[in-house]
């Protein structure tokens, strides 16, 4: 068993009197696809925010690639290999699909403005590298036909794929995906599972996934954590977690109490 | 304490200049606050009023006072028209495009003004108020300078309560603070934005009419090539004045106008290196005001977000 690439240790977040995350311990190994399950309000997105640095935890540690990152700014964690998608779109409207994917490679490229203006070899190498990755990304998310289009010309589902490709262009070692299937058509959801596996196989990055589509979540995840009221209530393979009485209770109990089944 | 005559005379020029800045700034603030446009075309729109005044008096032979009133209304109409024709079609979120369009309108107004003036290098315009010299102590000042300052103060005094308490004023403020909520409350955003543009531009027209026809004392005034450039010589200090109130506070914009006007004229009395470089002082002041982000003192957070959104 290799060391986890991402782990949290006793991670606790409080909002006023409410404990949103209560001593959460998780560990994700390199190249693993891990699902995060839980009813609405369980604290899933809060956990993502705490890991990626958009919320400051009250206590506990976040360890990324062997480094403690809980006090770092979000962009510093990006530099250490953490990629993340959001529930809302974050793309550049004035750039084409291709250029959105190139901008995301910013931290991996080196050529400066003078090299670019004089077309020096360092610029050529940069652009060749960027182009190769763009081609690969366009293939992975099937966006080739839209490469010269602008984000506002694309459908919502296509935009989600572009966003995914854009985060992948950061070449993360861990990818946090927050409900990637939301808002896209059923046909595209079915393509998403194999796509995530392909991303992992080709890039070797670990994927940590929040998803309400249970078919997708259980189909793709090698391990699943179940979260409720800010606590990890179960952990194991998809089958183990799906059969866990506490998980069923948390969903069914909610369903009865609130009449809002998430699955 | 008796002030020396030159000081009083210079101060009176400063008051007149300050009145112009104050009126321009008032319009800039009104337009920015309700519609989010930094109106770089403000001088150009005011210029329409001045050119209309010239045409009405010299070509149509109208009485100067009547012509002045009509011209102010025409300047207001040009502002309303430019909102309806151009600015209402641009999303407020796109500041760069808004500014570029305002620059285009400024260019348009300046060239049209040159055309209407017949491409003369200088154009004489007659005064529309009686000009006389008034003795203050042992100094002589022009009556029109006092009138200009008085008019600006009077308009500000009337305008501020109106903006605060009248139905239209309240609607304007509602549009400024939250367009969505205002439209939910049945306030027509575009109607009140048009009103803001009309009032702002009319004030700009009045500002020009208070100073240009009197630049040569009782012999009238001269419209020079400087006046027919897109920004004139007055727009930068007017922006400075508006920035005193963070581009959003009306009373402080008026105060700022007088501060800039009087300071600029008083500097004539300063040692020559400074008196020939008055715009440097204005620039330093403006940059300080900009860097202080004065707007944060005057607007509630929601309104600032509405402006920057």
């Amino acid at each position, binding site marked *: 068993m290799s060391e986890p690439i991402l782990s949290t240790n006793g991670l606790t977040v409080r909002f006023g009197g409410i404990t949103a995350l209560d001593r959460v311990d998780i560990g994700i190994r390199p190249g693993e696809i891990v699902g995060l399950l839980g009813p609405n309000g369980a604290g899933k997105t809060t956990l993502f925010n705490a890991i990626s640095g958009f919320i400051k935890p009250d206590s506990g540690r976040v360890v990324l690639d062997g480094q403690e990152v809980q006090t770092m700014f979000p962009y510093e964690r990006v530099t250490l290999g953490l990629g993340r998608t959001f529930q809302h779109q*974050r793309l550049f409207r004035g750039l084409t699909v291709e250029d959105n994917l190139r901008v995301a490679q910013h931290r991996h490229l080196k050529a400066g403005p003078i090299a670019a203006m004089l077309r020096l070899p360092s610029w050529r190498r940069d652009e060749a590298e960027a182009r190769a990755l763009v*081609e690969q990304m366009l293939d992975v998310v099937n966006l080739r036909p839209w490469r010269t289009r602008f984000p506002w010309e694309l459908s919502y589902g296509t935009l989600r794929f572009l966003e995914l490709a854009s985060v992948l262009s950061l070449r993360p070692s861990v990818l946090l995906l927050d409900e990637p299937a939301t808002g896209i058509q059923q046909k595209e959801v079915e393509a998403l599972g194999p796509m995530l596996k392909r991303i992992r196989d080709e890039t070797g990055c670990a994927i940590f996934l929040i998803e309400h589509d249970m078919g997708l979540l259980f189909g793709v995840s090698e391990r699943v954590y179940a979260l409720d009221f800010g606590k990890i209530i179960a952990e194991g393979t998809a089958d183990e977690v799906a059969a866990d009485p506490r998980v069923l209770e948390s969903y069914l109990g909610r369903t009865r109490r609130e009449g809002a089944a998430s699955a | 304490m008796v002030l020396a005559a030159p000081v009083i005379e210079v101060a009176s020029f400063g008051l007149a200049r300050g009145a112009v800045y104050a009126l321009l700034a008032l319009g800039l603030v009104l337009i920015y606050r309700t519609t989010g446009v930094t109106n770089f075309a403000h001088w150009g729109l005011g210029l329409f009023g001045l050119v209309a005044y010239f045409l009405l008096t010299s070509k149509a032979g109208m009485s100067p006072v009547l012509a002045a009133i009509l011209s102010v209304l025409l300047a207001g109409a040009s502002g309303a028209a430019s909102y309806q024709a151009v600015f209402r079609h641009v999303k407020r979120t796109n500041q*760069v495009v808004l500014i570029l369009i305002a620059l285009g309108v400024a260019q348009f107004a300046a060239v049209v003004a040159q055309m209407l003036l017949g491409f003369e290098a200088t154009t004489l315009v007659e005064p529309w108020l009686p000009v006389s010299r008034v003795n203050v102590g042992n100094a002589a000042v022009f009556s029109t300078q006092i009138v200009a300052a008085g008019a600006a103060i009077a308009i500000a005094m009337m305008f501020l309560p109106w903006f605060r308490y009248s139905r239209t004023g309240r609607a304007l403020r509602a549009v400024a603070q939250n367009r969505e909520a205002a439209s939910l409350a049945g306030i027509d955003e575009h109607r009140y934005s048009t009103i803001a543009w009309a009032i702002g531009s009319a004030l700009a027209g009045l500002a020009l009419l208070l100073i240009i026809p009197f630049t040569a004392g009782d012999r009238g005034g001269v419209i020079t090539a400087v006046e027919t450039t897109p920004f004139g010589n007055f727009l930068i200090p007017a922006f400075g004045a508006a920035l005193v109130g963070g581009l959003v506070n009306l009373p402080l914009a008026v105060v700022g106008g007088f501060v800039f006007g009087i300071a600029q004229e008083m500097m004539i009395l300063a040692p020559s290196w400074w008196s020939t470089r008055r715009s440097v002082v204005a620039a330093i002041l403006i940059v300080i005001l900009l860097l202080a982000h004065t707007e944060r003192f005057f607007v509630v957070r929601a309104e600032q977000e509405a402006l920057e959104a």
Partner: protein
Amino acid sequence: MKSLVAPAETAVAEAAPPPKSLSMRMPRLKRAQVLAGVAFLALGFLPLAFGSFGLYIAAYVAVWAMLELSIVVVTGYAGMISLMPFTFVGIGACTTGVAVAVWGWPFWLAVPLAALATVPVSVMVGAASVRLKGLYLAIATLTFGNALGETLFKWDDFTGGQAGHVMERPKLGALSFSGDFAFYVLSIATALLMVWAVHGLKNSRAGRAMLAVRDNEREAQALGINATKAKLTALVVGGMIAGVGGAFYLALLETVARSGFQSPYVELTSLLLVVWAVIGGIDSAFGAFLGAIALITQTVVFQGAERVFAYVGVYAAFVLIIFLLLRPGGIVQVVKIQAERIRENPSRAIPASIIGFGIQVAIIVVILVYGAE
């Protein structure tokens, strides 16, 4: 970094035998490029047909294209509205004047000095741009330009006094660029080189960082882009381009009066530069060239004919507003859209393009006839 580097290389290897669609497109692209090159060369010789005056105008266009390029970088790429571009030109022109006319430097050494001389002012604007966004930066640059006109450009040693420095056209060994044709070739070559450089900047790490900051500063930072550095780079590059343009501006006119860099003329010219950059296509280096052609046709060819000048000015403002409302990419965007339409539906789009172009020509002819009557 264990992720994409290795697979990326295999992707290159796989892509080496290009897929069909790509190989189909390559020759077409090349043919279009050849055609464009031929058309360009033909256009390049066009001024010869008008003799000395034609060459002078063409050199003017080339110099003005350099000035427009600085706006492309600062406003088009990085999204900062600077209302002082002509001030940078003035710094370049006066620096060249001092270096050549006073110190006796060769022109070729004065050009890099002119570019470097703009850097302190760029850095000053850059320092302001960190804290000032959008309209606040526009106001700040307007006042900077105004204030520099009353300080830097009142300094006789720098500007050469009221009349300005007098400089001869440059020489390179036995090769003299004093003739109209030689200077035209020199300036058009320099301008095209700069267009090429600025175009290259757009497709690079630094250029894309500027575009990203323009579109969404916060998001750009989330990708690890240093927004301050991107803006400062744009300002320094833009300023240096304007400085080089200023050196050529002086070489073209042989003397430049300082009043042009003082209020209100500096604001006037800066505004004209911005307006025509937008019409040409503000985020495109080629657009700068188009804007320069249009601007010079307006201001120089019809210098005496005030009415033509004014009608074109009104028409330009009108076109600017229409473009900003409907085609913010300017002429370049219109041409691109039209080209795409022709590719999709030639039978309809070709006549439509011809009619549209014809209307434009007709408007300009009407302005000329009516204005010059």
